[in-house]
């Protein structure tokens, strides 16, 4: 009874976590793989809860019943080969149950073949550069002006009055819904990491190396993240904004960008 209500309490805590404040759990995200990642996270979590209930349960019972003040005489046993074999084998079985589905997801994560769109992401201290390979579009994306002003020490601006404080950029990445987007990530200076929780992507951008990541967004919307690898003094001020739009809107955006883009930029 107690256990059941405890479980439902936990389930309640981890269910309705869409609201931003006091958020308790990982977002499910908007790609098939982000949902799979979420499911893996929850599966391992529930295994931990189950193991915890058993181990802590036994321990708590012991703490109450086997105390000197209860007048108990200590037992004298000091080993049991069968018990030790059992509690070595059971964890091995649990680990195998965990490892198999996880490995399946990992294989999918690495499959970046046949993308619809490829974007080269180059990290700089402290901004991002995006280049749409097939469209000849490229631009820098850095912290939006209102956050930039409010972030300074003694700026006199309350961060709570700034929309999406530190999570807004001047030029977001725009991608169409349901398209397979491949990111080719590298860096111009130090190691950074491109991280958007809703896409379940965190990939290091490393000078001299091109890393790959991919996603296929299922839902239109604005998704925010930021640099996840310490990259110097403005590491906290390198947000990422991805706008997922309908395919038509994406085409229109591409055309508009091409119009407005100065010719020199295509050399980048």
């Amino acid at each position, binding site marked *: 009874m107690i256990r059941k209500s405890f479980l439902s309490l936990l389930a309640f805590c981890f269910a309705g976590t869409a609201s931003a*404040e*006091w958020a*308790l*759990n*990982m977002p499910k995200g908007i790609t098939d793989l982000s949902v799979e*990642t979420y499911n*893996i*996270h929850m599966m391992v979590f529930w295994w*931990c809860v189950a193991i*915890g209930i058993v*181990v802590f349960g036994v*321990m708590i019972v*012991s703490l109450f019943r086997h*105390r*000197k*003040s209860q007048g*108990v*005489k*200590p*037992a004298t*046993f*000091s*080993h049991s080969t069968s018990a*030790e074999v059992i*509690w*070595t084998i059971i*964890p091995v079985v649990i*680990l195998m149950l*965990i*490892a198999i589905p*996880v490995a399946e997801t*990992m*294989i999918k994560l*690495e499959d970046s073949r046949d993308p619809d769109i490829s974007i080269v992401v180059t990290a700089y201290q402290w901004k991002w550069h995006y280049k749409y390979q097939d469209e000849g579009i490229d631009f820098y994306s850095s912290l939006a002006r209102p956050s930039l002003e*409010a*972030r*300074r*020490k003694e700026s006199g601006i*309350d*961060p*709570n009055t700034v929309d999406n404080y*530190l*999570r807004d950029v001047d030029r977001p990445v725009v991608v169409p819904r349901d398209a397979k987007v491949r990111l080719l990530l590298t860096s111009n200076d*130090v190691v950074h*990491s491109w991280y958007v*929780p809703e896409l379940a992507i*965190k990939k*290091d951008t*490393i*000078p*001299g*190396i091109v890393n790959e990541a991919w996603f296929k967004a299922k839902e239109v919307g604005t998704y925010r*993240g*930021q*640099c*996840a690898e*310490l990259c*110097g003094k403005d*590491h*906290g001020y390198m947000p990422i904004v991805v706008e997922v739009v309908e395919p038509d809107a994406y085409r229109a955006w591409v055309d508009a960008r091409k119009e407005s883009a100065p010719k020199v930029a295509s050399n980048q």
Partner: protein
Amino acid sequence: MSGMTTRHGPAKGIGRWLFSTNHKDIGTMYLVFSLVMFFVGGAMAMVIRSELAIPGLQFVHPEFYNSMTTMHALIMIFGGVMPAFVGLANWMIPLMIGAPDMALPRMNNWSFWILPVAFGILLSTLLMPGGAPAGGWTMYPPLVLQTGDAFPYLIFSIHLMGISSIMGAINVIVTIINMRAPDMTLLKMPMFVWTWLITAYLLIAVMPVLAGAVTMLLTDQFFGTSFFLAAGGGDPVMFQHIFWFFGHPEVYIMILPAFGVVSEIIPTFSRKKLFGHDSMVYAAASIAFLSFIVWAHHMFTVGMPLSGQLFFMFATMLIAVPTGVKVFNWVATMWRGAMTFETPMLFSLAFVFLFTIGGFSGLMLAAAPADIQYHDTYFVVAHFHYVLVPGSIFAIMAAVYYWLPKWTGHMYNETLGKTHFWASTIFVNLTFFPMHFLGLAGMPRRIPDYSTQFTDFNTVASIGAIGFGLSQLIFVLVIVTAWKGSKATDRVWEGSHGLEWTVPSPAPYHTFETPPKARIANEAFE
């Protein structure tokens, strides 16, 4: 030439400490040094948590904030936790195995006295142009090469810490292998001695690796090499591989002696022998072995081949098996015992609970796709602080309470001790538990300011941190009043067992000048 005093007692004045070759004096110096560093590193944590209490920058600039996180880690790891365990090893290993001193007493003096120099150098970088190192304690290139004048001092101080650790480790191994009481076979050794023996081998294996890695950073910076510089054909990721080949065994260096401490204390206060002594030894050895083949689980986001990711994931998950054996054995030790709850026992029980929670988040982190979400967020910060603070540090505190009467000859104030325990336990959870939620919501590590949706849990964590910091003043109070308590008996605790309890309290300056009789050693072991 003053006869008895110079032969049997400590030297007078500062010379007693500067030139000491006595394992007890050196152990004391290690422990005091570690406590000082614990407060220095703790003060830096207070700066970090103050800045993070609410969004916006209130106290420090981002570069100094990064220096604080970097220095906090280096000081707590190399100056707080590791020297504390070396101090306990110095004090207790000779007493527990019936040896008169450490095997290499002059080297022992060196191992200690290098440390204040190393940390003097490291702390002096706070005053240098360009500030203290701010590239993270992991020192990833190319970022770390942007450090100002502090850079060579950082490398040199790490070299010194490594030399100190290696010498300490050699001393522990030689002492344990050669100086055990007659009839104390390896498998009869107390768990604390066992875990330290394994730890010492880990230290000797990996500290030179760290020294090599930071030396390559040094030559990349000053001598034109390109080990880690892409522009010269080097590979920044190679540093991460080398660093974590050191770094992962390093985390077990900080936890194995803690396992040993807890394995001493729980049987004492359960009035029952440690359950599965031999399997505890094998479990510790397995953990040590596995620690060498899991390093790249710190690097699931660097773009490793799939086969590499799978290998490191499976190997990492395996660590849960021997770690589980240890936890189950502790619980089995308590089962049907006759427990009492003095302060050392309270800290040890909290260790078992809270270290296990850190172990659970460790298992979650092992699942590579989920790790990609957790990596470099506060979830990881929560995880490693759970295994290090209510893990390693609680074990160190448990050890201090446990053996303090043996060191001072007096019982500490139990009420103060329990107050310290409850305050620490409540605040440590208040500090670090909310960080799990922050990480899952996507707040990265090592940022001085954050988006406003992270405000609530950060405020809670900051309140917890200030509380935890202040609670440690009680610990100091317990220690400075430790000489005022009632006289301690030789056995100190009703359920205590082992050779260290056969010598008087306080332990005389020289103990076991002749090895204990095999019979006594055996009885003490039983």
